[in-house]
C-alpha cells in the first residue's frame, strides 16, 4: 500500500545552507510519527515545504497520490493536510468559533451572491460549517466551548491558543495534521494533556499525525515511530527506544555546539 505522505530527496537550499537536505520520509495512514532533532535541524522547514509555505528546490512530495510540489498552500490544505505553528498564529481579532470556521473554508463553496441573498443552499452550508466547527471545539471540552465561542481568540490563555490552533487544523477535515511543537511553552500538566490529546486525535478522530516535539516524555508516550533529523538529514528512524539510543542522535544532541561552530568556521 502506498504511503499517505512521502517525500523523496526533498531539498531546500537557503543560499548555501541546505536546511532540508535530500530528505526521504514517509508516514502511513493512522500513524503517529514524531520528528525530533536539535534546534535548527530543519524540522520546521520540512513542514513549510510540505504545506507549500516555501517552494522546494528539488525532490518530490507525494500525498495520497498527488504531487504536492508547485501547489499553493490552500490547494494542499484542500487535499487534506493541515498544520499548527511553532509560534502560535491565530486570527487574533476573530472569535474562537470563527477561527475554526475559517478552517472549514475549503470545504465550502458559497460566494458573494450566496452571502448576500442567502438561498437555502447557502444556509445549509453555513449551518454545516458552524456545526463542524462546534464539533471540533467540543473535542476540547469546556476549555474552548460554551460561552467562549464568541470571545476573541486573543482573549485566550497561551495553552488555549495552542489548543485552538489544533482545533482550527482539525476544522479543515484534513487526513494528516502536522503539529509543530504543540507542547512548547506549556507547563508539565498541560504537556501531559497534549500528549493524551494527540493519541485521542488518532484513535477517536482518525487523523494521521506528524508531530515535531522536543519534550521526550511526549515523544515516548505518543509515537508509533520516531524520525530524528540533523542538518536537514534523517539521522535515525524507528521506535522511540531505538532512536533515543542511537549514537548519531546522542551525538547530534550533545555534540551540537562543537560541530556547529566547525561548520560556521568552514
Amino acid at each position: 500500500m502506498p504511503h499517505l505522505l512521502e517525500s523523496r530527496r526533498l531539498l531546500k537550499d537557503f543560499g548555501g545552507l541546505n536546511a532540508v537536505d535530500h530528505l526521504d520520509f514517509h508516514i502511513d495512514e493512522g500513524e503517529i510519527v514524531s520528528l525530533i532533532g536539535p534546534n535548527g535541524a530543519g524540522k520546521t522547514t520540512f513542514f513549510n515545504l510540505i504545506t507549500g509555505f516555501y517552494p522546494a528546490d528539488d525532490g518530490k512530495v507525494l500525498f495520497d497520490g498527488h504531487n504536492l510540489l508547485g501547489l499553493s498552500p490552500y490547494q494542499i490544505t484542500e487535499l487534506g493536510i493541515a498544520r499548527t505553528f511553532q509560534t502560535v498564529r491565530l486570527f487574533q481579532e476573530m472569535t474562537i468559533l470563527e477561527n475554526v470556521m475559517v478552517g472549514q473554508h475549503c470545504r465550502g463553496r458559497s460566494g458573494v451572491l450566496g452571502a448576500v441573498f442567502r438561498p437555502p443552499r447557502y444556509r445549509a452550508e453555513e449551518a454545516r460549517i458552524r456545526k463542524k466547527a462546534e464539533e471540533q471545539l467540543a473535542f476540547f471540552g469546556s476549555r474552548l466551548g460554551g460561552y467562549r465561542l464568541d470571545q476573541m481568540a486573543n482573549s485566550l490563555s497561551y495553552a488555549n491558543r495552542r489548543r485552538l490552533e489544533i482545533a482550527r487544523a482539525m476544522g479543515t477535515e484534513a487526513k494528516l495534521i502536522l503539529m509543530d511543537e504543540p507542547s512548547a511553552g506549556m507547563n508539565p500538566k498541560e504537556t501531559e494533556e497534549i500528549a493524551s490529546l494527540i493519541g485521542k486525535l488518532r484513535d477517536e478522530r482518525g487523523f494521521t499525525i506528524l508531530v515535531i516535539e522536543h519534550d521526550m516524555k511526549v515523544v515516548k508516550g505518543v509515537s508509533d515511530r520516531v524520525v530524528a533529523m540533523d542538518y536537514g538529514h534523517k539521522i535515525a528512524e524507528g521506535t522511540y527506544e531505538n532512536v533515543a539510543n542511537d549514537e548519531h542522535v546522542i551525538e547530534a544532541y550533545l555534540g551540537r555546539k562543537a560541530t556547529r561552530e566547525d561548520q560556521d568556521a568552514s
Partner: protein
Amino acid sequence: MTNSKLKLGIRMGAYGGVATIYLCLVGIIETFSDRDIITGIISLGHTLLFLTALVTGYLNMQQVDKLINPAHQVVEKAPKPKDTIHSAVAGIITGISLVILVLVLDRFNIRDMLVNASPKLFELLLLEKGVTPTMVSLLPFGQGLAAGMLRLVVFSTVLGLVGGTLYLLPPTRRRSIMLGIAMVVLLGLLSDLMRIALNKPGWSEGFYKLIYTGRGLSSQGAVITLVATAAITSAWRYIPDSYTRVISVITAWLPTWIRITLASLLSVSLLLRLAWFLGIENVYPPILPDCPGLITSNISLTNCTEWISQGLSAPQESTEGGLASSAPAVSAAITLADSLMLLGIAASIFLLLVRTVQMSMSSDIQKWPAPPLQKLERAQRLVTLYLGVAALLFIPGVVGVYPSEVLVMVGLYVVMGLGLNIVVGMAGLLDLGYVAFFAVGAYSMAVLTTVDASVGGAQLSFWGALPLVVVITGIAGLLVGAPVLRMRGDYLAIVTLGFGEIARFLALSDWFKPALGGAQGIIKIPDIHIGGVEFVGPQKLYYLILVSCLIAYFITARLKDSRVGRAWGAMREDEQVADVMGVNTTAYKLLAFAMGALIASVSGAIFAAKLGTIYPHSFNVQVSITALGLLIVGGIGSLPGVVVGAFALVGLPELLREFSEYRMLFYGAAMVIMMLVRPQGLLPSARRGHKLQGNERDQDDWMRIAAESEAAGSESSG
C-alpha cells in the same frame, strides 16, 4: 509631591499656552469670532479660546490623578479639591502665554511673517470684542492694555480652576455637564442650519424662537440647552428601560386592531406625502396637517371635524407651505389620514392613561403587563424600525434644501465608505487610491449617458447604464488588484495612492480627450428618473442615495458575516496562515478590490448624474483621504461607524462651510486626537474594542505562563 504637581501644572499650562497661541496665529480665533455661539454674549472664537483654558485645567487634573495613582496601584486615591490649585496654575500659565502674545503684538509688527497677527486679534485677546461687555465688566479693571492683560490672566485662571473642578465631579455629573457644554456649542454652530430648517411658519417656528436669536443661541436658549442636555444625560440610563415599558404597555393594552389601524394610517399618510412630493408638487407637505387648532392646542371634536371637512372640501386657496391645490384628491386624502391618525393617537393615549390610572389605583404590581420576552422584543424591533423608516423618509422635507444637499454628500460618502470598508476594514488591504473607483464609476456613467454629441454617444438612461457602470468599475477593481497582489501594508498604500492619481491624470490627458473630455470634463449628463419622477434637487436625490446606502449597508453587513467575510478576516489577520488554512488569498484579494470598486461606482454614478457635469478635478486624492478618514473616525471595520464617520468628516464641514479654510487642519487634529484618545474609533466594531481592552492583561498572562513552563521545562530536561 507638591513640587512635582506644581511642575506638572506649569508644564500643562505651557502646553495650553502653546495651543492657544497656535490657534490665534493660525487665524482660527479671528475667523471664528464672526460667528456667534450665544448671540451678543460669546462668539465661537472666544468659546474656543476659553475652552482651551478649561481643557488645560481639566487635563492637568487628570495628570495629577495619574501622578498620585501610578499604574497597578490597588487602592485608588482620588485627587483632593485642593489640587484644583494646580489647575489654576495651569490656567495662569496659559493666560500668561497669551499675555506675552499680546505684548508682542503690541510692541512689534509681526504681520509680515504671521499674516493672522492682526489688530483685530489684538482686540479680541484683550476681550474688547467677541464677548459681551457684561462679561468684561465682571472684572472692572478699566480700559487699556494692562487691564486687558489682567483680565486675560484672571479669566484663564478661573477657567483652569473650573476645568480642574470638573474633573473632580462624579463621572455621571461630569459627563452631563460636559455634554451640556458641547451641546450648546454644537447648537450654536448649527444656528444657520436650524434657521433654514425650523424658522418657517408652523409649529417649528415657536421652537426656533425659543432657542435662537440672531445668528446664535439666545441666552435663554443656552440655559435651556444646558439644562435639558444635563437632565437627559442623567436620565439616559433609564430611557431604554422606559421605552421597553411603553412598548410593553402598548402591546398589552391597545387592541391589535387599533395598533394596526394606526400604523396603516401613518403609512398611508407617509406614502401619500412621498407620492405628493416626488410626483405631484415640488413642495413638501407640512409635517402636521395645517390645522390651526393643534397649535393653539384647543382640540375639540368640532375642530377636528372642521379640519376633516376642510381637507375633504379641497381645493382650497393654495397657502404657502400648505398643501397646494393641484391635486385636491391627494391633499384631501393626506389631511384625512393625518386627522384620523391624530384622533386615533389621542384616543389611544386617553385609553392608556385610563388604564394606567386604574392600575396604579389597584396597586397590584402583578397586573402590570409583562408580555412574553420574545413578543416584546419583536414588537420593540418593529416599532423602532417603523419609527426609523418614518424619520428617514421625513427628513428632507423637514430640514429643507441645503441640509438635504449636505445629507446627499454624506450619503455618497457613506456608500463609498462602506465599499472601502470591505477593502480596508474586512480584507485589511490599505487602499489610498480608492477615488479611482469613484472616478471610474462617475466617468463611465457620464460617457454612457451624456447627450453631448462630442463624447460618448450611447446616450443610455441612468438605469440602463448603471449595470454597465458597475461591471466596468468591478473590472477596474480587478485591474488595480492584479498588480498589487503581492504587496502588503505600506507598499500597497503607496502603489494604490499612485493608481488614484493615475486615474485623474488619465482623465485629464490629451490622449483620452476625445472620450473623456480632458480638463473640461463631460457635460450634459441627464438627470435620473423613474417613470415620471425626476430625481432633481437634493431633496429628491436624497431618497435615491438613501436607497443606495441601505443596499450597500445590507450587502456589506451580509458579507461580513459569511464564508467570504471570514476568509477576508483571516487574510486581514494573517495572510500566510489564511492561505495555509485553505483560503485562496489571491482570489479573495481580487474579490475585495472588485467588491469595493463596484460599491464605489454606484456612488460615483449618482454623483455624476447629480452634478450633470464632471471634471477630473473632482476626483483628487482628498476624496480617498476623506473616505479612509471616516473609517478611522468611525472605527475601522464597523458599519455603523461608517455612517457616524461620514457625518463627522463630511456632514459637519459642509455645514461649516465658512471655515473651509481650516478643514484640513481639523481633519488632522481629529485624526491625531482620535489615535491618541480613542484609537478604536467612535463606534468600534465589537472585536476591536475587545482587543484594546483585554490584550495587555493577556500579554502578561502569556509571559508569565511561558516563563513558568520554560522554568519547568528546563528542570525536567536538566
